[in-house]
């Protein structure tokens, strides 16, 4: 196997988009049967490389080969599909169509008279999914599937074209811990069957868990390629950031003042079907984690606090006041700042500028009642850009033009714009590169220092590590509370409903 030509090889690739150089003399070699990690901060050139490897863009210079043969012409979509497939973050499944139809779109089986034979299509889809052990009813509309099943579906579809080289673009970004484990189990399984993966992720832990080799890109260049086992984490981070930064160098924050008053009190809140009898308190200056799997109800609790949902019973008090349940304006007025779960969905309006997005929550401060003073808004925005180190030419830039990390900073800026007493963050670092993540978390600590109470609802251990204490939810109940200094395995065990303490 090791003597065979690499499954995919790109050499001396240069790609320009207008005046920006997206890739400069970059290269990557992916050997057969490997799981190869591609890492780099946002804007390092990963996506451009993926689009060149999948034939969506032609490189300006350089060559791409598959199994030693030159890549097919750009127009030969079938030729590309037989060699390589990419499972993008953005799903290419059509939600209105059934699973079977999604698998065989535009290559349906014809019966008599040239009409589609749905029976054959379903049977073949069933057979295909069984071959790759995907347990989904082929007649289900694809929109009913969860993220995990959709990914498996896309992988199965890619394999059905004959491709044995699959690019996974941040496959774990929207999955919870257990689903990630199932995905990894499947990757290992397929790897044994001779499938090669290129794995793109912001989570370095995952790379150490699943990948054999890692390639680092930075500033449009190839930096290094090394076996994962021989590369210490600190060096990997250093290669990505270009600095001698070491992991965990962040200064430890002093613990919150135990005498400061509670800014957030949730008492006996129950919402049928998602959580039961949840009580929690957050003091001013305290950072409290709310951990749990995606379905544990932690997100619903956080959304109840900010008024996106209303609990059936129980109360939410913010800085002593009790805002009307289920009303976001009331919660904002009471002093809540909020970073929602999915920034693309609830976080920002993509075509609006940074300035408009950042000040969405504070129109009343931007001018006489009912009016918005553009200059005052831009002043606010410039302060935000500086405060959160958002990389942008100016406040008038639409948010859609920013990288993921910077988009999240805009969402954070909006949450902070109203000087909240309580800051509620749901998955604040999902899909964000390492540096932006460090920065955002550092910012959260800074905010807590200034006396704001912070609640982080996340299953990301790095987000939870800096919390003064972490409440763990499982199946809608708070099942454990861990003080700072917990071990990873005990928290994960609690999130998965396994109690190691007993």
């Amino acid at each position: 196997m090791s003597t065979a030509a690499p499954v995919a090889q790109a050499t001396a690739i240069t790609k320009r988009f207008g005046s920006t150089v997206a890739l400069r003399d970059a290269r990557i070699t992916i050997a057969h049967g490997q799981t190869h990690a591609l890492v780099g901060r946002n804007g390092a050139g990963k996506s451009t490389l993926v689009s060149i490897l999948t034939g969506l863009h032609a490189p300006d210079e350089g060559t791409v080969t598959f199994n030693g043969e030159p890549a097919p012409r750009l127009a030969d979509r079938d030729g590309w599909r037989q060699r390589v497939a990419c499972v993008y973050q953005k799903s290419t499944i059509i939600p209105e169509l059934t699973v079977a139809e999604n698998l065989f779109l535009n290559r349906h089986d014809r019966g008599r008279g040239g009409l589609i034979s749905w029976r054959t299509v379903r049977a073949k889809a069933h057979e295909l999914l069984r071959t790759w052990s995907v347990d989904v009813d082929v007649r289900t509309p694809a929109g009913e599937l969860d993220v995990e099943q959709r990914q498996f579906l896309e992988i199965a579809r890619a394999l059905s074209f004959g491709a044995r080289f699959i690019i996974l673009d941040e496959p774990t970004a929207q999955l919870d811990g257990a689903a990630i484990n199932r995905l990894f189990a499947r990757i290992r399984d397929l790897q044994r069957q001779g499938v090669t993966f290129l794995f793109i992720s912001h989570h370095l832990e995952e790379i150490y868990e699943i990948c054999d080799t890692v390639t680092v890109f930075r500033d449009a260049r190839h930096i290094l390629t090394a076996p994962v086992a021989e590369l210490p984490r600190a060096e990997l981070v250093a290669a990505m950031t270009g600095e001698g930064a070491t992991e965990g160098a962040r200064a430890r924050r002093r613990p919150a003042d135990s005498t400061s008053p509670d800014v957030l009190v949730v008492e006996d809140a129950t919402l049928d079907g998602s959580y039961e009898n949840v009580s929690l308190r957050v003091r001013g200056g305290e950072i409290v984690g709310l951990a749990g799997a995606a379905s544990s109800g932690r997100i619903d609790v956080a959304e109840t606090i900010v008024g996106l949902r209303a609990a059936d019973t129980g109360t939410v008090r913010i800085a002593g006041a009790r805002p009307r349940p289920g009303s976001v304006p009331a919660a904002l007025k009471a002093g809540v700042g909020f970073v929602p779960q999915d920034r693309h969905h609830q976080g920002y309006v993509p075509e609006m500028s940074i300035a408009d997005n950042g000040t969405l929550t504070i129109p009343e401060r931007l001018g006489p009642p009912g009016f918005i003073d553009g200059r005052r808004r831009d002043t606010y925005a410039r302060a935000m850009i500086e405060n959160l180190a958002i990389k942008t030419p100016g406040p008038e830039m639409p948010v859609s033009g920013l990288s993921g990390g910077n988009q999240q900073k805009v969402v954070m800026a909006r949450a902070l714009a109203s000087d909240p007493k309580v800051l509620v963050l749901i998955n604040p670092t999902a899909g964000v590169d390492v540096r932006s993540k460090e920065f955002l978390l550092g910012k959260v600590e800074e905010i807590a220092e200034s006396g704001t109470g912070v609640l982080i609802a996340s299953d990301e251990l790095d987000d939870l590590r800096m919390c003064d204490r972490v409440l763990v939810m499982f199946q809608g109940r708070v099942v454990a509370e861990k003080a700072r200094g917990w071990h990873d395995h005990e928290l994960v065990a609690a999130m998965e409903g396994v109690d190691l303490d007993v």
Partner: protein
Amino acid sequence: MSESATAAAAKRPDDGLPDPAGDQPATRRAGGRRLAFARLRDLALIPAIIVMGIVGQLVNPVFLQPDNLINVLQTMSEIALLVLAQTLVLIVKKMDLSLESTVGLAPGVAAWLTVPAGAAHGVGLLPGAWSIPVTLTVGLLIGVVNALFIIRFGLNGFIVTLGMLIVLRGILTGISGGQTFFQLPQSMLYLGTTQWLGMPASVWICLILFAIGIVVLGFTSFGRSLYAIGGNVDAAKAAGIRTDRVLWIVIVTASVLAATSGLLLSGRLASVASAQGNGYIFTVFAAAVIGGISLNGGKGTVFGAFTGILLLFLIQNVLTLGGVPAQWIGALNGAIILVALALSRITGGKAQD
């Protein structure tokens, strides 16, 4: 129960695949239920149609007489073709408002060219036999112009066809001098007046075109590509569908269907009024949406659209038979559309898109 299984899976990521079957029974059951529901959605209006039949019979025994039913089918056949056209366009996530003007202009141009000079505003350039080809050609050209603006120049379909609606209506008013064309050639009257096997030709044409629509959209790759484009155009491109070509065909076909509809209408009325088709588009949209076609594309079936327009016309017929004053029919029509939408929201289970 699924949590314990996932926890187990988490603890042993290495021993091959976790058993997904033990893990997702709930999802699958729910999937199955929704599946049955999705199919029911297609037939959702059938009970309503049956209820209308019973109510109609109680209101007036004439209602279920074959003559009355054929009459209903004939009056709805022209607008039903527009619903078919709009359905195709909506499924690919576009909109075509200009259909209602095409209904007037396509036969209007044919009448203008074939009606002898002196009678109304005819110029009598062509012999009467040319009227049908001219009508369809005008429809085709309108479709090409629409497609050119929407696909080639990437403009918003709603605004483009709104402009076209006004322009086409204006052209018809211009060539007709605001008058009505009479003394149409025989070939134009034929389809609107002939009986085939005891039913008006227009009813046959309408039913046959709907049948073709059902087969094409349900059982051909081309038809399925409409759903793919409406559902997720990038995914459709990625699957190798030539999206622009499909869109061209859909938009042009819709206009040709509208021209056909105009042909049937002017044949039945033996005239082309300068306001022919005015205001139809609202009924068309209402029927399509009631019939389960999503304004957001990718959803709905031709059969559903047919039940939508059928239900609207049955209700109108019952109202007329019930002796509701003609002046009130308009207000009731609007109310019916709202009630039907509310009902389909309840049966569809999801917010209307």
